[in-house]
């Protein structure tokens, strides 16, 4: 009995040990699971959105990419992928070439850029990642550009939609020299676009409201991503300048290679300084230009050309009619009054003549 009890006690102790071991193992497994699960947590990243560099043929430039893991609780691994992009319509929205078999674009930076494939970031950690761009001797002048896509390493799941967020940075490199630069003006005129719409419409007759914005379409047929500069003068029907737009491309927008890009500019603008994330940025918005009703001509002089290449010039003129309804109403009333006056005078004259004829009879 004692022995049996002793054996039972021994069994109980063994079982207890086993239970303890299982519990410890379970906790360990759970910890590993939680760890891997945590590793697959969603990430928030902060990056510099764009970088513009000038690199001469035969030279290289070393610089740094900034990346910050915003999640203060979870470490993350991020893959750095160079992806080509093209334009997406008339706007400044890039279209990443993410298809597996997407051919390399003629303006791709892929052959010239060197950067690490993967980086690790601790919770809340920010890093500067060194990278370099080398342009070989004899490389033609022009623009070369791609995007650096920061892909957090994917998590896992079953029966699920795994979601991932990848911010990207556009990198533009200008290689100075004699480049092929050609932009064709496709349209220039008054432009109406509603807030939050991608596209608006060109127009020359304004009835409901004053023209606030001009726009022009440039087709880039060269090998440089062009940022034209220049001015626009608006003159009234008598040739007197009533508005002057000093900078016809205030946001320094680019027309990518092969793109037909729309550039928009306010006739009269107000500039606000917006402070955000430690940076002050000037934001321009259109306001009522205070034009009187009438016919106006806008004369635009645009210039483009990279350093060392010929300066190209585009000149264009457009006519804008601003005839608000109240003005049309006033004109109609004046014309009606004039017609009435002529009618009355005519009636009087005819009456006088009839009287004279009657008198003669």
């Amino acid at each position, binding site marked *: 009995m004692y022995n049996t009890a002793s054996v039972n006690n021994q069994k109980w102790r063994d079982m207890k040990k086993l239970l303890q071991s299982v519990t410890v193992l379970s906790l360990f497994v759970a910890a590993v699971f939680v760890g891997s699960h945590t590793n697959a947590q*969603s990430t*928030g990243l*902060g*990056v*510099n*959105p*764009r970088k*513009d*560099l*000038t690199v*001469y043929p035969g030279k290289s*430039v070393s610089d740094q990419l900034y990346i910050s893991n*915003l999640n*203060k609780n979870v470490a993350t691994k991020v893959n750095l992928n160079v992806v080509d992009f093209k334009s997406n319509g008339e*706007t*400044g*929205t*890039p*279209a*990443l070439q993410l298809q597996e078999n997407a051919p390399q674009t003629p303006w791709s930076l892929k052959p010239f850029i060197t950067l690490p494939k993967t980086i690790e970031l601790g919770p809340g950690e920010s890093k500067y990642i060194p990278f370099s761009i080398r342009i070989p001797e004899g490389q033609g002048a022009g623009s070369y550009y791609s*995007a650096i896509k920061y*892909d957090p390493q*994917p*998590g896992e*799941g*079953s*029966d*699920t*939609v*795994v*979601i*991932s*967020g*990848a911010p*990207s940075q*556009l990198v533009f490199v200008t290689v*100075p020299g004699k480049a092929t630069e050609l932009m064709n003006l496709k349209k220039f005129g008054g432009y109406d676009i509603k807030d939050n719409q*991608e596209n608006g419409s060109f127009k020359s007759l304004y009835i409901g409201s004053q023209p606030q914005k001009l726009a022009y379409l440039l087709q880039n047929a060269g090998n440089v991503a062009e940022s034209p*500069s*220049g001015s626009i*003068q608006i003159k009234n029907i008598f040739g007197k300048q009533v508005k002057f737009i*000093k900078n016809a491309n205030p*946001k*320094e927008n*680019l027309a990518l290679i092969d793109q037909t890009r729309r550039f928009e500019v306010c006739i009269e603008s107000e500039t606000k300084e917006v402070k*955000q*994330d430690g*940076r002050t*940025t000037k934001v321009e918005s259109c306001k009522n230009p205070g034009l009187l009703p009438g016919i106006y001509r806008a004369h635009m*002089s645009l*210039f483009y*050309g990279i*350093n*060392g290449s*010929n*300066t190209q010039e585009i000149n264009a*003129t457009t006519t804008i009619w601003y005839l608000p309804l109240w003005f049309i109403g006033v004109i109609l009333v004046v014309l009606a009054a004039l017609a009435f006056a*002529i009618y009355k005078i*005519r009636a009087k*004259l005819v009456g006088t003549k009839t009287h004279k004829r009657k008198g003669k009879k």
Partner: protein
Amino acid sequence: MLQKIEWLRALKTKPKRTAIVVMVGVIAFGLVWSVTQQADAVRFQNRGMYINSARGGDTTYYVISLQYTTPANVGSLRLEFCDNPIPSLPCNIPPGLDVSSGTLAAQSGETGFSIGEQTQNLIVLTRPPSMTGPALSSYRFDNMHNPDGTHQDFYVRMTSHASTDGSGPLIDYGSVTATTTPEIELTTQVPPILIFCVAQQINDDDCTDMQGNFVNFGELTPNQTFYTSSEIQARTNAQYGYSIAVTGTTMTSGVRAIPAITTPTESFQGVGQFGLNLADNNSPDIGANPTGPGINGNVVAPYNESNKFLFNSGDIVATSDNVTRTRKYTASYIVNVPADQPPGVYSTTITYTCLAGF
């Protein structure tokens, strides 16, 4: 008075002739106005400028090249450095620019020039007047001081004259443009930043507190629409704004797939469908319109249509066109399966890519 009365009588007796005279007058005025407005003078051909170091504030050399268009006796070439290219407008000196110490170091094509007059933003080249030819001419100026700042556009207004001092009637004219662009970006203030996060749930404006990197539909059956949602948040202080693209595949299990909706379509039970939108829906009741102060961040059509879903890899789903404060978008996903959908574990990875504009 009598004359006026006669004229008014003429209106009555000769209305057609009067109308024709008025119309011809209006058309003639319009034509004369158009022609005079569009008149152009002769510009230099193949004009350009090379700056050896384009960094703002550097002292470097410039090479200005041009082709004289009009064969004529030219005695001077006037080069005026301004902040705008239009000759009829006042010439303001680009901030920081100084060419008063510039020297003419080399010349080719039309030669024999020396500097006749020089100020902070003006150089007049002079020579005994002689006939110009069609060759490309270039002039190198040493010791030129660039305007300050990065991305500072400036222009050289050029005119040729028969006189030797840059005065009198111009023969050819034209402007060249240049921009101060650093070889390596100079950081004059905090560089722009793009903040972006994607999660099942985002709990703060700074993307520091988030939950989940997947969304689950549960077990799929043909008589029910399954739906779920995730959140996307972005902000930038860059003037070009951002765009958000969605990429991935439809839900698959090995070689079996649930068809993606490729045009905006409502949810239909019993039909194979996988799609998403970023709108506030009531059929099924899921999703929300964008929230947050970054009101210029917007969902792009057709992903903004309530109760209509689609999924095309590579589509842009949201954009902003300027500096944009925090904006949170809710992505809603739906899936429907037909009765004959082969059983399996269906899954996919959806990636939202956020890019700056240009």
